């Protein structure tokens, strides 16, 4: 079984032991271990169960490509499912639990599926469970859902910090192997701004393990020196533990940094905009497809070598090597030199030659040419391999006992990042892999390619080719570094081992370990007509696991192509999508959580509201008081109190959120005449006018009071939601349609706090504070004036949205709170009452004033609301005029605004529709109107409502039925929408 050797392990620190637990069992590892190497060191080869068949699985790989070794990691708020053990550094006290089994990893009921495997081929879901109807939802699906999924669902709220960072550079180099180092150095030397990122914590990639010399010095030394030179260059930023997650259009790259530092944000998402991106992302070794190639103890040859060199961990005392290329011989040599047994190298190639082969033979390792694995034997873990002729059907020649199998099917360049923005690939017959086609790179905003591959990511597998390719990629000056690497013999593609394997064997050859996709499944997909690579993938789930097919894709493609009797390039690949390996949701959210989730806009009076029982209502990003609730009072009671106090004495409203836009210039009047349905050019200086704005499509989008400030300046008030987009709307027309008109606008919404002083005592309280003259004579209804109030400069607008005597006082925001306090003090004797949005809505409804967003919903035109008086007949054009002439807009049966009065005084249900007789052609009940606003009126002591009713204004007195959702009828009579003070005696005093 796997174990830690007495010596070796370039990355671990044997002076820093770390305690951790796996499924409750105490274990120890060393600083520098990954969870995977630590488990192997403790003899833990079985680390999880597969997705579908719950087969026992062990660690296969060393890095991001690992399909099996996923863990429930950590506890409580720091718990994280599906943590990849091969890429997670071991930390003191780490709590690791294996996934997808019950009751235990060793004894898993779900493993029954493995026995049933023959009944559960690819696509079996689609072929069954469809009868009887209803069973899917209630019987089959719940069972399948329970058995699906991998890690446990987190329960608690994550407490860690996350953040984003924008970075810019000339050259971004992704990958810190020797190719990345060479490219970064070359780019840096040429004076460009460079960022170099590496997904692991160590530099040098494979070369650091495989050794040799570069430019005459030992590789490790060369890496160290190169890094030092890079660090010296101020234009180069170097980042370990940072993965290139995705490349997006126009050179935008996501880099995912895991700080492994408790004081720092846990993850940092870099958004790097690079003029040029060099992907030095290396290559990944392919498994071989032989029977039982998924038994714990069967690993990638390179991984076996890495664990030995990096962590001093051996996968087993006796390791059989299975390969179709020279590289795996390095593993054999490393094991042998590490004092471990290598009973045999099974090489599918008929006559392997080359220096590595010789080296192995010289070490006395038995090399069997033309041989393959008929089957791996063992229960729950490798106990031996049945050897056969690769060219045959799998007749067993001998059985070699062993504890581990190191396999190598050749190497595939990591082309994911190259492909995210549609860089194209070509099939390399000689090396049997897809590699980037430099002539068809991803296209940047300037039409040029912006991604270049370097090293084995380009398909350069020999060290010297890697160095040269990287040097070229960064257009380095001078000659590239040179290594002493020995040359390798050619690979022989092997997609199924042995060649002539029968169906029983093919049904035990795993392509996608995590999703349990076998050679036979892909062949079945082809047989059933799922010929497109995307069909085959979706039908079999090949490559859809959390490793995104890093090990399985190419092998699967080859099997599919073979089944379709077509060359691999004709089959093509599936689409590569970001991210390269999964990234945390929290890192994507960044710091935008809690208070920072979205901006919260506050008025100058916000804090006062907060301190005075405000029951908040979000209005856009603002938060406005819905009502001010006093102790022992319900929200509804508070609203009623606020309405009554305002109608009978004095109410105060924070109207600061209303939009305020200055429009100035010789053509301002002409411009406003286009913006509004009414005439604004003839508004007299000092006067106010209520205006309507429509979209070019005819629909009412905003309303508000416009005041003429001077000969060439108007002030336009908008709704709370309208401020920004109406200002944008104005600028859009000025900049893109009428750019020759002399008009300037300025959005001064936030310059002013605006306070409504409303009610019979409004004037009294203003006069008491003193300053500006607010008498009926000097400041009549719908006029405005400038002056001082209690020494504070203000603008007073004599306007009313409540039907009461009312002023809106605008004051510089920084003095808003001062004036507000002053008004409360002065109004105390009248029981000055602050009121919220709901009281505001009720009072406007009592007066029959429409509310944008209530009476309008984007489908309503002013004519529907009886606002024809606000549509100038004198103007030959305004935005929306043409649209309002279309047949449907002029239909006499359009739903129009009316008041609604229940026969029994009750409140009509909000949103209810008035039914008409019969059903339409689709069997839906016919309707003839709907409720747009409905309230209990504290003033009238009964329910009042406004609504849109087909041809309503001509049907006064008609009684309609507005059934509730449960069908309960509510009868209401059509009346005038003005329920309160129809003659406006109160507001005009």
């Amino acid at each position, binding site marked *: 079984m796997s174990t830690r050797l007495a010596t070796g392990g370039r990355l671990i620190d044997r002076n820093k032991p770390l305690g951790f637990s796996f499924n409750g069992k105490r274990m120890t590892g060393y600083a520098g271990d990954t969870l995977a190497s630590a488990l192997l060191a403790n003899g833990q080869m079985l680390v999880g169960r597969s997705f579908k068949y719950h087969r026992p699985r062990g660690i296969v790989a060393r890095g991001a490509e690992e399909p099996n070794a996923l863990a429930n990691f950590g506890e409580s708020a720091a718990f994280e499912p599906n943590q990849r053990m091969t890429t997670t550094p071991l930390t003191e006290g780490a709590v690791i639990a294996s996934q997808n089994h019950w009751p235990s990893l060793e004894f898993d009921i779900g493993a029954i599926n493995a026995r049933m495997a023959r009944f559960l081929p690819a696509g079996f879901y689609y072929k069954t469970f469809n009868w009887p109807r209803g069973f899917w939802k209630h019987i089959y699906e719940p069972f399948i859902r329970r058995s699906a999924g991998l890690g446990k669902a987190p329960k608690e709220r994550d407490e860690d910090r996350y953040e984003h960072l*924008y970075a810019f550079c000339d050259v971004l180099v992704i990958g810190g192997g020797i190719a990345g180092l060479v490219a970064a150095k070359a780019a840096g030397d040429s004076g460009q*701004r460079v*960022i170099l990122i590496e997904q692991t914590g160590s530099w040098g990639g494979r070369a650091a393990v495989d050794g040799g010399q570069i430019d005459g010095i030992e590789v490790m030394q060369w890496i160290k020196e190169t890094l030092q030179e890079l660090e010296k260059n101020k234009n180069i930023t170097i980042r370990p533990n940072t993965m290139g997650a995705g490349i997006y259009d126009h050179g935008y790259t996501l880099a995912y940094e895991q700080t492994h*530092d408790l004081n720092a*944000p846990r993850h940092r998402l870099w958004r790097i905009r690079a003029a040029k991106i060099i992907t030095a992302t290396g290559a990944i070794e392919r498994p071989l497809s032989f029977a039982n190639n998924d038994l714990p103890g069967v690993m990638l040859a390179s991984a076996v070598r890495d664990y030995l060199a990096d962590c001093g961990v051996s996968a087993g005392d006796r390791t059989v090597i299975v390969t179709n290329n020279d590289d795996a011989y390095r593993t054999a040599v490393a094991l042998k030199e590490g004092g471990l047994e290598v009973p045999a190298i099974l090489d599918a190639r008929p006559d392997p030659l080359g220096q590595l082969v010789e080296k192995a033979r010289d070490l006395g390792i038995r090399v069997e040419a033309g041989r393959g694995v008929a089957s791996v034997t063992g229960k729950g873990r490798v106990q031996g391999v049945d050897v056969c002729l690769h060219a045959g059907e799998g007749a067993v020649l001998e059985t070699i006992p062993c504890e581990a199998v190191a396999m190598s099917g050749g190497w595939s360049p990591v082309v994911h990042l190259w492909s995210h923005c549609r860089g194209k690939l070509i099939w390399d017959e000689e090396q049997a892999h897809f590699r980037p086609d430099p002539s068809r790179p991803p296209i940047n905003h300037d039409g040029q390619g912006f991604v270049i591959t370097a090293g084995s990511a380009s398909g350069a597998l020999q060290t010297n080719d890697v160095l040269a390719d990287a040097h070229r990629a960064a257009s380095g000056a001078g000659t590239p570094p040179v290594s002493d690497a020995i040359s390798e013999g050619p690979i022989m593609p092997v997609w199924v081992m042995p060649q002539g394997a029968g169906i029983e064997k093919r049904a035990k050859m795993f392509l996608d370990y995590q999703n349990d996709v076998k050679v036979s499944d892909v062949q079945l997909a082809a047989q059933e007509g799922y010929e497109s690579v995307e069909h085959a993938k979706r039908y079999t789930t090949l490559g859809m696991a959390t490793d995104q097919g890093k090990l399985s894709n190419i092998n699967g493609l080859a099997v599919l192509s073979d089944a379709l009797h077509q060359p691999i390039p004709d089959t093509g690949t599936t689409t590569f999508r970001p991210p390269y390996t999964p990234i945390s949701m929290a890192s994507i959210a960044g710091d935008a959580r809690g208070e*920072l989730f979205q901006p919260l806009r506050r008025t100058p009076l916000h804090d006062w509201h907060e301190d005075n029982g405000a029951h908040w209502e979000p209005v856009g990003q603002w938060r406005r008081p819905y009502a001010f609730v006093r102790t022992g009072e319900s929200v509804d009671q508070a609203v009623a109190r606020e309405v009554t106090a305002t109608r009978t004495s004095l109410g105060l409203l924070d109207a600061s959120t209303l939009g305020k836009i200055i429009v100035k210039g010789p053509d301002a009047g002409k411009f406003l005449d286009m913006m509004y349905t009414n005439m604004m050019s003839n508004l007299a200086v000092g006067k106010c006018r209520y205006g309507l704005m429509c979209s070019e499509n005819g629909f009412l989008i905003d309303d508000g009071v416009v005041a003429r400030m001077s000969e060439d300046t108007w002030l336009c008030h908008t709704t709370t939601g309208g401020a920004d987009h109406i200002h944008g709307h104005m600028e859009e027309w000025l900049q893109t349609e009428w750019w020759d008109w002399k008009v*300037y606008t300025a959005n001064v919404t936030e310059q002013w706090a605006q306070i409504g002083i409303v009610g019979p005592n409004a004037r009294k309280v203003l006069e008491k504070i003193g300053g500006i003259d607010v008498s009926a004579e000097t400041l009549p209804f719908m006029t405005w004036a400038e002056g001082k109030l209690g020494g504070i400069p203000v603008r007073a607008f004599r306007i009313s949205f409540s039907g009461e005597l009312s002023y809106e006082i605008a004051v*510089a925001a920084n003095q808003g709170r001062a004036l507000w306090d002053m008004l409360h003090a002065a109004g105390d004797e009248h029981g000055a009452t602050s009121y919220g949005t709901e009281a505001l809505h009720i009072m406007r409804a009592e007066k029959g004033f429409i509310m944008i967003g209530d009476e309008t919903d984007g489908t309503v035109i002013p004519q529907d609301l009886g606002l024809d008086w606000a549509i100038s007949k004198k103007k030959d054009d305004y935005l929306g005029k043409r649209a309002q002439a279309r047949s449907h807009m002029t239909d006499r049966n359009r739903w129009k605004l009316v008041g609604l009065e229940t026969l029994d005084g009750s409140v009509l249900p909000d949103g209810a529709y008035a039914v008409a007789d019969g059903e339409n052609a689709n069997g839906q009940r016919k309707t003839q109107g709907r409720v747009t606003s409905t309230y209990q009126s504290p003033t009238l002591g009964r329910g009042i409502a406004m609504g849109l009713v087909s041809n309503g204004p001509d049907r006064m007195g008609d009684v309609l039925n507005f059934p509730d959702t449960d069908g309960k009828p509510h009868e209401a009579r059509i009346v005038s929408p003005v329920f309160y003070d129809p003659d406006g005696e109160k507001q005009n005093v």
Partner: protein
Amino acid sequence: MSEPVSALNGASFGGYCDVTEIGLRGMVTLRGDLSAAAFKKVIEAETGLTVPGQRKIVHGKVVSLAWMSPDELLLLVSYRDAAATAARLADSLNHQHAMAVDVSDARASFRIEGSACREVLAKLAPVDLYPEAFGHGDIRRTRLAQVAGAIWMPDEASFEVVCFRSVARYVFDLLSEAARHGGQVGYPVET
């Protein structure tokens, strides 16, 4: 007569950089034809500064003048003088098509100080803040996380940030979170 109070009343935060609300500050938005001699003449007479070029900000002893768009400038003066300055400018621009508006109360502004101040902003704004790309004398209107804002460097080791008053708290919290101890990145280079 009561004293005006800025959005956060001078709040401050200490991290690996310091974040401070600057408090009351006069600002006048000027719109007009920046290339027109008549317009320039008025502005330069009032401020004693030459109208800055594209994305530039110029500083005098008490006032600063920033380029906001091809037809807009922002004049920074003391809060006390803002209203008068705006009125005076409006008056002297009276005979041309132009606009001068006091927007002092519509804004909040912050100072970020510390050798790593560039990276605090780099966490919030999609702007190249490498010294070669942005430095003293430059101004950039951009996005700070989810709101609009403007940034410039009054000197080589600090930033000033202007945003709308209603989101002052949001921007202050953003900057503080970005400047929190432990979060220092080392990119872009320290100044």
